[in-house]
């Protein structure tokens, strides 16, 4: 008889499983409430046409997706996202790695100070960063113009953020300035987790300098680089506040991204369904990259 109760739902094992379930519950609840529910809402909404205030949802099937496919601004926005993703991966992860390597090896004194300075923009809100850069890039009073002029060159006539040829590049620079510190800290932690003895063994085995980097350092920070790249990719996908404050997607959609364009469609033009469809496209791309990252880091 006692045997049966031992095997029952309140056996030590069952009790432990229940406890772990109970511990996970708050997190699961929060995720469902703030991530899962809006996602489901967005997916469902993408098959309807409605405005934010209307109770009146009209089912349109894949109409919103078809509309996106035929909307040149959607494609411009998507292309701009892609540009920011690739550009950020190169500038932020690349530069972050180089800075981390310099701090790890080259800098003897003041390591903590440099680290703090480079990391500082990470903790500042994107809005504040955007305003700082609006000032820096201001065509009338901005220091960048002054510097360029003092070097005997001519700043762009339409302004750094006003010239459609330049503005997207400027956004890339601002994003890099804000986020490179984060990537640097990430890579630095990865570098410092590689035991010094590995480099010594490699030196004895004939791998120094670039070869030590290729065979010891790179494999050692591989996962960190994958995670860092994924974070950059997601950042490039969902970028909104920086663009919204600096250029608002202009001039003439030159810096339009899916984030700002969905906002425009949803809250200015009242096309909630269309905005939802674009968000779902964003979500799908993000999920794809997340899955890719999981696969890549499992292989290691």
């Amino acid at each position, binding site marked *: 008889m006692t045997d049966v109760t031992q095997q029952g739902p309140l056996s030590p094992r069952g009790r432990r499983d229940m406890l772990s379930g109970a511990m996970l519950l708050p997190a699961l609840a929060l995720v469902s409430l703030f991530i899962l529910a809006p996602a489901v809402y967005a997916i469902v909404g993408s098959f309807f046409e409605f405005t934010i205030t209307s109770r009146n949802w009209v089912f349109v099937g894949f109409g919103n997706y078809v509309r996106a496919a035929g909307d040149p601004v959607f494609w411009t926005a998507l292309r701009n996202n892609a540009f920011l993703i690739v550009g950020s991966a190169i500038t932020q992860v690349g530069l972050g790695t180089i800075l981390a390597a310099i701090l790890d090896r080259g800098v003897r004194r003041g390591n903590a100070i440099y680290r703090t300075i480079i990391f500082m923009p990470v903790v500042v809100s994107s809005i504040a960063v955007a305003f700082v850069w609006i000032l820096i890039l201001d065509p009338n009073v901005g220091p960048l113009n002054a510097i360029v002029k003092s070097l005997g060159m001519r700043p762009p006539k339409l302004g750094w953020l006003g010239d459609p040829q330049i503005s997207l590049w400027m956004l890339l620079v601002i994003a890099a300035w804000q986020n490179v510190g984060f990537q640097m800290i990430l890579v630095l932690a990865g570098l410092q987790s590689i035991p010094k003895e590995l480099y*010594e063994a490699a030196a*004895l*085995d004939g*791998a*120094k300098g670039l070869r030590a980097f290729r065979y010891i350092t790179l494999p050692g920070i591989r996962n960190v680089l994958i995670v860092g790249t994924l974070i950059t990719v997601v950042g490039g996908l969902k970028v909104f506040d920086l663009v919204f404050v600096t250029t608002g997607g202009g001039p003439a959609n030159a810096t339009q991204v899916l984030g700002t364009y969905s906002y425009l469609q949803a809250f200015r033009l009242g096309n909630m369904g269309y905005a939802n469809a674009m968000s779902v496209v964003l979500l799908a791309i993000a999920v794809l990259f997340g899955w890719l990252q999981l696969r890549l880091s499992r292989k290691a």
Partner: protein
Amino acid sequence: MPSLQIDTVVKSYDSFTAIKGVSFTAEPGEFIVMVGPSGCGKSTLLRSIAGLETITSGAIRIDGRDITHAEPSDRGVAMVFQNYALYPHMTVAENMGFALKMAGRPKTEIAAAVAKAAKILRIEEHLHKTPKQLSGGQKQRVAIGRAITRAPDVFLFDEPLSNLDAALRSQMRVELGRLHAELKATMVYVTHDQTEAMTMATRIVVMNAGLIEQVGSPLDLYNRPRNRFVAGFLGSPRMNFIKGRIVAAGGRTVTIMAEGLTMPIQLQIEPDADVPAVGDVVTLGLRAETFGTGAPGQIAVPARVAVVESLGRETLIYADAGNLRTFDSESQDGYLAAHRSSQVMLRPGDPLTLSIDPAAFYLFDRNGETLRFPPVSS
């Protein structure tokens, strides 16, 4: 089989000199064990030989070739690290073949060298695993295998067994001995463990505070330690050290009153030692295994059992003999260590008579230099 020559090597860090002028030569095929307390500079010296540290002055030669300033990979040395230092993202085979790959050797040659080393170390079935799939002992074998594949002139080991458990450690000691016999290579092995030194070395280099105290074969150092440091460092349990004072000296014979003994002890000084003056403070040394069974001529000392360590067939007794106490040992509370090569039915608190054979005494002068060795009994 090349020789290794260390010539008055000095290694200073900013404000601290870790190696203060060390010289010795490892003859071809020798198994040299450098032993000494933690922090005495063993690793620093070994890393200097490997080229991982730049020495401040002196020279290092292998087979007469000056390698003092050569790159680590050009010295013809291979090193086995205490924490294995295996490349975590490479397989065992890749780890072992890495040096040959860096040297640009053809794949078939690398595979052959790896297979051969794996066979010697009996790790063939692990070649495709990664280091984190291996146990500590297997990892250390791979690390040794990595050294073997390179076929170096000199093998360097830095406390390679200290991360292993006791059983595995004694097994690996035997295997390293076998490996040395098989490869007939010149090896330098660093440890703080006197057992490893005694069991594996063809010659032991005893280091202390950046200097060499003595070089010699294990038994040579055990029987004829040059000073109190070497006498205390080699041998387990540690030699008993008893304070004494010279009360009379005539010719090469001195008479000593030892603290805790009522009877004066007469000893002959070695021919090449300086005779101490009357009144000098000296140290008497007594190995644990020399306590006798009460034969005539031996000094009987009443004592009480403090701790009994039964080792199976043998027994270690730590005895409280009142004022007769060993004075420099950290852990024994001044208890005398006595070794019996039999099982003993004693419990703490039991009375016990220690018999001391005066002929078994070592004698050290006030600076710790040896004045007298007991005759070696066989």
